[in-house]
């Protein structure tokens, strides 16, 4: 017997971003059937995945999970964490597992079944799929995945669909920690497990993965309740200051997606073109008409990052109008002088780059208005094969720039204002997304392993 309604509480748009406890408890008062939270994103760049670090601090993640786990276990409802640790590779999942275990231990919670779903894809699997022509770049500017680049890639993960998460729920897991997942999948899975329509479940998941972002005012740092019915769903903000409107919910599918109403996920395509959004008068919105179709070939999205260089950088200010007027020209001359000075080092071992805030710092070559401000913030960076080389070259760029005698100079004591001493900042490793590919698989379960442990 399928329930008439299925309620999912989404505490926040990113585990560790925090949420008002009052909103969460208001959500719990609606007797939700599950608590689902997304923890993942590639927004912060390739470093998190490449270096195996988390997006949020352990303290922040634990603070959110303490409330979610305590209340979820008390209510006897499943708790699902999507894309654990941010990037969802083994190291990130283990980081999250350790926090969950710590909370269970500290709160003396027993008899809890924990499912972990690994999303790591072995390099040799990707290599074989590439050879078989079953792994294609996703995007016009994604570089070909050569053997060298594949080998240099530290972690490769794939975004899971609902299938392995449903398997964990069938195994009666109380807490499910997912590796990298398609953001809406953990939400869709729990609803589909209870027999609800997959199109509505995925569309609701797409909205709930950002929690209250589709309300007005929108935020990822507040809770949202999703209520699935047989032929519609309702999204309901849990803080009185927020309201959903037909437009705010419709517009949400714009967010971070390449297309406003066609959404590609693991093994499926969601089509929201004909959706109808209705305001219910209490700040909640009902949605119907979401459509989904399975793709002829099941493809999963792979993500991987590799280290490309080590960086050292300097932040400086320029206020002299004579230098501002010819800043790019002077920077080019500084660069040439450094190349000449270090002519024994192959030029391909390092790169020098200037960013001029106040001129075109944000947009670079895309900047249509090139009028310099009365002062410039200049960031210069050196990336090199080793940190030592980056430090050495950057030091030379800094001293050359500081004292460079450009034509027409009057400020013969120094060209740069450094806000900090020391001025040179060794940054560490620079990563790049080396894998952003679609890979053909047999089905949604093939590449994801479920593991269970009872506490």
């Amino acid at each position, binding site marked *: 017997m399928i329930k008439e309604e299925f309620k999912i509480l989404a505490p926040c748009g990113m585990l560790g971003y925090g949420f008002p406890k009052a909103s969460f408890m208001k959500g719990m008062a609606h007797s939700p059937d599950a608590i689902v939270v997304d923890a993942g994103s*590639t927004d912060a760049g390739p470093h998190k995945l490449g270096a195996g670090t988390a997006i949020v601090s352990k303290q922040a993640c634990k603070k959110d999970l303490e409330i979610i786990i305590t209340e979820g276990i008390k209510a006897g409802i499943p708790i699902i964490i999507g894309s654990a640790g941010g990037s969802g590779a083994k190291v990130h999942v283990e980081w999250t597992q350790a926090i969950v275990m710590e909370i269970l231990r500290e709160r003396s919670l027993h008899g809890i079944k924990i499912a972990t779903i690994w999303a790591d894809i072995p390099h040799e699997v990707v290599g074989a799929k590439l050879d078989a022509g079953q792994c294609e770049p996703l*995007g*016009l500017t994604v570089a070909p995945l050569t053997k060298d680049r594949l080998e240099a890639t530290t972690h490769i993960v794939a975004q899971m669909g609902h299938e392995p998460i449903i398997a964990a729920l069938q195994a009666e897991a109380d807490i499910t920690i997912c590796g990298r997942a398609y953001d809406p999948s953990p939400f869709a899975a729990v609803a589909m497990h209870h027999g609800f329509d997959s199109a509505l479940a995925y569309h609701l998941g797409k909205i709930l993965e950002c929690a209250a972002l589709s309300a007005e005012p929108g935020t990822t740092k507040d809770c949202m309740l999703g209520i699935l019915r047989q032929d519609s769903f309702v999204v309901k903000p849990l803080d009185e200051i927020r309201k959903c409107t037909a437009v705010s919910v419709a*517009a949400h*599918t*714009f967010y971070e997606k390449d297309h406003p109403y066609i959404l590609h996920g693991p093994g499926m395509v969601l089509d929201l073109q004909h959706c109808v959004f209705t305001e219910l008068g209490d700040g909640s919105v009902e949605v119907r008409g979401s459509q989904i179709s399975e793709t002829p070939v099941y493809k999963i999205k792979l993500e991987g990052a590799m280290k490309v260089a080590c960086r050292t950088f300097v932040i400086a200010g320029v206020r002299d109008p004579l230098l501002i007027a010819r800043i790019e020209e002077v920077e080019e001359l500084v660069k040439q002088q450094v190349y000449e000075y270090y002519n024994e080092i192959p030029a391909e071992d390092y790169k020098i780059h200037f960013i001029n805030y106040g001129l075109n*710092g944000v947009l670079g070559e895309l900047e*249509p208005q090139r009028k310099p401000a009365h002062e410039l913030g200049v960031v210069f960076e050196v990336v090199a094969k080793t940190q030592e080389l980056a430090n050495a070259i950057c030091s030379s760029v800094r001293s050359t720039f500081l004292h460079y005698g450009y034509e027409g100079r009057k400020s013969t004591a120094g060209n740069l204002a450094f806000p900090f001493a020391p001025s040179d900042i060794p940054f560490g490793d620079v990563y790049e997304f080396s894998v952003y590919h679609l890979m053909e698989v047999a089905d949604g379960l093939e590449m994801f392993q479920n593991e269970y442990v009872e506490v």
Partner: protein
Amino acid sequence: MKLYDAAAVFRSKNSGPFAITVDVLFTDSLFYYKMKHSGQINKEVVSKLYNVEPELITHIVFFDQALGFKITFARKVSSGTFLDRDVYGAQQHAPLMELEVN
């Protein structure tokens, strides 16, 4: 008027690490449909504003229920690596804001 004068939401963000997507949402449905049907937002205009080849512009789509349109184009430098200037792609909407529309 400039496009940003008419829009209620005007933003950009990564759509994955290899694309930038710009969203422009209106509150005035008359103005939205005027923009949609006038053809003023097209590949040629976007290509010029962003100094990006037309073939790198993957989508210009209007969505009536949201009273808005979306433009997506490929990044020449992917998010967060050497030479990138905007890891989240959050400040790439500005060139389009200045577009004169009528």
